[in-house]
């Protein structure tokens, strides 16, 4: 634990001194579902150790863009992607890239908590087991504990690690899913409306958690809540009808947006 906090402090110091490096970048991303085009030439940068929020009215393509970032759209037969998306300057749609490795580096938390019908312990050990991150029981124990610690769930579940994950409350389940994603030590975590199924208290906990995770991870979050975007994110990107309307520092987006559509959306005039 000590080591971790040290690293975090160091990184935080680092970060405050120099400009944030680029983590992921989308260039002219176009996505088609069959004949229907869902994204039009989206150019978006995701900066390291920052929370980037994607906002916009329903159906505008936020989830679609998010799922492009770890190639989850590959699982949809009719989906076709054009353009270039890079992770650390490397094209993730390059045929030489192994999608399994990519998803280990870019994890995902879904809108609805989806713990596997296994024990809490096995839910977290799942990823490390698959990727061979540990072999001895002690190593697994440590990964499970530290992941649960980071997700702020450890104290609540430490006595019932071997009970089914589906028996937790909705908010606990979502934090379990976050812990599960953390367990494979990704570099980027994608979250698609992670709080939409949660009550205000659970939401506050998850938001707090996101803020802490920022020190070690790069986060991209889709949200429908303007307050949430304002609270947790440093950068915000506004989508509308498959287009990226504008992006920039969250402060500026919420106080002085360039585009009228952003202004209207933020003030609740549509969407």
């Amino acid at each position, binding site marked *: 634990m000590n080591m971790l906090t040290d690293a975090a402090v160091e990184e935080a110091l680092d970060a405050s001194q120099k400009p944030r490096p680029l983590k992921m970048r989308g260039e002219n991303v176009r996505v088609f579902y069959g004949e229907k085009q869902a994204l039009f030439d989206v150019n978006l940068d995701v900066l390291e150790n920052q929370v980037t929020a994607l906002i916009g009215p329903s159906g505008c393509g936020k989830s679609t863009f998010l799922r492009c970032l770890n190639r989850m759209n590959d*699982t949809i037969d009719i989906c076709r992607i054009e353009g270039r998306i890079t992770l650390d300057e490397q094209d993730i749609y390059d045929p030489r890239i192994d999608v399994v490795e990519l998803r280990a580096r870019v994890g995902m938390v*879904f809108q609805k908590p989806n713990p*596997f*019908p*296994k024990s809490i312990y096995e839910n977290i050990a799942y*990823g490390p087991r*698959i990727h061979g991150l540990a072999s001895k029981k002690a190593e697994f124990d440590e990964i499970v504990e530290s992941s649960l610690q980071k997700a702020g769930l450890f104290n609540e579940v430490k006595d019932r690690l071997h009970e089914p994950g*589906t028996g937790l409350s909705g908010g606990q389940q979502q934090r379990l899913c976050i812990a*599960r994603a953390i367990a494979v030590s990704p570099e980027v975590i994608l979250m698609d409306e992670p709080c939409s199924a949660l009550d205000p208290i659970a939401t506050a906990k998850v938001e707090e958690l996101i803020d802490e995770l920022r020190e070690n991870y790069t986060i991209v979050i889709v949200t429908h809540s303007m307050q949430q975007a304002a609270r947790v994110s440093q950068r915000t990107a506004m989508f509308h009808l498959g287009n990226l309307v504008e992006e920039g520092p969250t402060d500026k987006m919420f106080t002085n947006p360039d585009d009228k559509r952003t202004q209207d959306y933020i003030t609740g005039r549509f969407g």
Partner: protein
Amino acid sequence: MAWGLLLTIIVFIGVVGYVLGSARAKKQSASVAEKPHSRAHYHGWWVFLLAVLPTLLFMAAWSAGSYAYVDRAISERMPEQTADSAIASRSLALGMVRNLATGLRRIEGDPAFAEVPKSFEALRPVLAERGVALASDTQDYMIPIALDLNAMQDNAALIGTVIAILLSLGGAFLGLRSVRPRGRARNNVERIITWGLLAASTIAILTTVGIVFSMLFETIHFFRSVSLSNFFFGTVWDPRFAAAGAEAQEGQFGLIPLLAGTVYIAFVAMLFAVPVGLMAAIYMAEYASKRVRSVVKPLLEVLAGIPTIVYGFFALVTVGPFLRDMSAAIAGGPGFIQAQSVLTAGLVMGIMLIPFVSSLSDDIITAVPRAMRDGSLGLGATRSETIKRVILPAALPGIVGALLLTASRAIGETMIVVLAAGVAANLTLNPFEAMTTITVKIVNQLTGDLEFTSPQTLVAFALGMTLFVLTLGMNVFALYIVRKYREQYE
């Protein structure tokens, strides 16, 4: 009048009633200000039902009643049954009269036979010419009785027809009179539909209960002459079709060899069907593209529609000899696999079961929520890891249920084993030898021309009951598991 014609007339009355009734309802709703309770066609249907349903019930009751009545009248006219009567039993004599009466219908209205021959000798060739065979000891005195019987039946049918038509007309009239704007025709029709559906579902259940009881009685009958321990714990199956009179020889009715054969063959069948079927299901649910799936799935399900006798035939003429010859080639002498063997029957039965396993499992695997897959793939698991570690464990209870259902089919399967497994009630562990199953022995015991009350025949019911309890238990257990599993996601 023929029943067909009568039915047509009644339905016709009903249809006319429908048309008039709905027309009447329409006219009323046009002229009355208040909103009608039911739409016009409900009134029409109500008239139709009133015209048809009570009449049908009456017709059923009437034909049963008139049959019983005529029977009694005829029976009274028959001579007293005495020890030296020509015919041994009264019911046999009555049967002859009925047969005769049916035969006489053939020459009814034929001008050549305005006068029906008085003697059996004269009548017999005439009826034989028209395809009616009479029992050779039919008596002369039965001819006038048979003629009377026909006349009585005609009378009853005529009266019945008249009443039926009147009833139908009355019903239609009543229905038409009841058409009112606020009349609750819709509720009436709905109620009758409910009753109809209820009746349909009860028929199946009642029939099953009936079957069980009839088996139960015969089984109890069987256990009067054979002890429970002889049946359930006996290891020798030798029912000994004893010649009449040799009663001292009681056969041996050991269930164990049959049960062992049944379970062994089903086990071998499942050994083939489960891996292949499961893998096919996984392929279809997880890997196949929509196009492939839309072709392969129906194709596999067509296999389920092939009559099992065809599989049995396939086993008998193709698989069995092939295995025998192959084993002969390997051994270099006489083959170690018999043409009829556990292996042959199990293999072919396994092929038959593949579509059951794959189709049921496919449904269950597809029912695992997409979120589970996404969660696993999103962590960087490959497809096969996802299947092995998330989807199959999640679907496992359901799959176990499906496998139990399949196994109970394997245990109850008859035609394949009759042809492929043989009839020798061996107790062996060698899958290359012939064994036999409960179902095969049921067929065997019932297809002889033995007395129906001998234990050799009655044992079939005891076997059937055992099989029934066995498969019922498995099905109930399977359904229980499947249901429990469903609750997880809903």
